[in-house]
């Protein structure tokens, strides 16, 4: 159902070996390759640029300091994506305990900030997505964009498969409702030829 994950970037074995050996240049190469996928994932889930930036940092510090734990029997991007998801979920869980976060207009502006090329319907989608609950947003993104299975999502969120399925259904339904409620842009006034 989904397009390939934006994480799906092949990394040369020699780059990985050098990064594992502590070579800063190789480590930076990994960062530059995966900066956008990791940041995008964190931003979509957190809906806050500061939290996303912190999650980006934490993800790479965790991953690069534990590269020896990457077995190499599967693509590196899959391993890094798991680290990114876990890091972001950890940040969300920490936030949930101290604040009830509601997507604000400002946050939505952050989401679409600097994206003048973003078409209007995508801005509407970003705004609607930002209004989903934190949990529904996470499940919808991990399932529909990253292509994770319900079993994987349930494990990562420490929930049941049924929970993941119901959150996905509710999230999609809510997203559709929000998009349907988006007002159509005002029509341009008709230009009539003057006599």
């Amino acid at each position, binding site marked *: 159902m989904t397009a390939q994950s934006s994480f799906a970037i092949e990394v040369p074995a020699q780059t990985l070996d050098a990064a594992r050996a502590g070579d800063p240049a190789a480590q930076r190469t990994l960062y530059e390759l995966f*900066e956008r996928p990791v940041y995008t994932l964190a931003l979509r889930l957190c809906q806050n640029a500061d939290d996303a930036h912190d999650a980006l*940092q934490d993800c790479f510090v965790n991953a*690069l300091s534990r590269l020896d734990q990457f077995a190499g029997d599967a693509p590196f991007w899959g391993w890094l994506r798991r680290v990114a998801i876990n890091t972001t979920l950890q940040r969300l869980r*920490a936030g949930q305990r101290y604040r009830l976060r509601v997507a604000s207009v400002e946050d939505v502006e952050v989401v679409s900030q600097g994206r003048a090329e973003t078409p209007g319907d995508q801005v509407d989608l970003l705004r609607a*997505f930002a209004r989903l609950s934190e949990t529904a947003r996470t499940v919808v993104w991990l399932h529909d964009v990253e292509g994770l299975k319900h079993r994987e999502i349930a494990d990562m969120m420490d929930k049941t498969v049924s929970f993941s399925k119901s959150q996905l259904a509710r999230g999609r339904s809510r997203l559709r409702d929000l998009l349907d409620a988006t007002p159509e842009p005002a029509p341009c006034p008709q230009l009539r030829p003057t006599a």
Partner: protein
Amino acid sequence: MNDRHLAKALSALPQAAPEQSAWPDIERRLQAPSASDQPRSSVREWLLAGIAAAMVGGLAAIIVSVQSGSATPDVAALPEVAAVTESGQLEALMMRSQELEQRLTEIRAGNLRPETVNELEGYLALVDLELAGDDDRVDLWQQRVALLDTLVDVNSRLASNPTYQL
């Protein structure tokens, strides 16, 4: 819009990039020297590490005392905490501190001692001291909120239970 179209539209959203590269901070964290290698001039980092260590040790002590009901909690009973404290690694301590906060929340059903309030207020004072010099540290504010959250909870439970004496 059906499920397939919705997923496709979400996948087609443009990727985002941070306004500033996070690499300099990541590199600094990766290359952070161990406590024994830190320069003497890094007083601020030492202070932060001290606060974090105190909080980790203190929170661990509270957890141990709550779980065991003993009057004199033994931090060493948690070997992983002791190891982290010895390392002096600020990041590790703060991460451990967060885990301990989580555990504190999870053991809210356990017994509490009135002394817990004094301990928590002591750590709060340490955090406030550091915030007085740098009030835009998100991690310190998080620690402060966590401590206040726990304090409110502890006070509420002490006040509502007649068997406790403040």
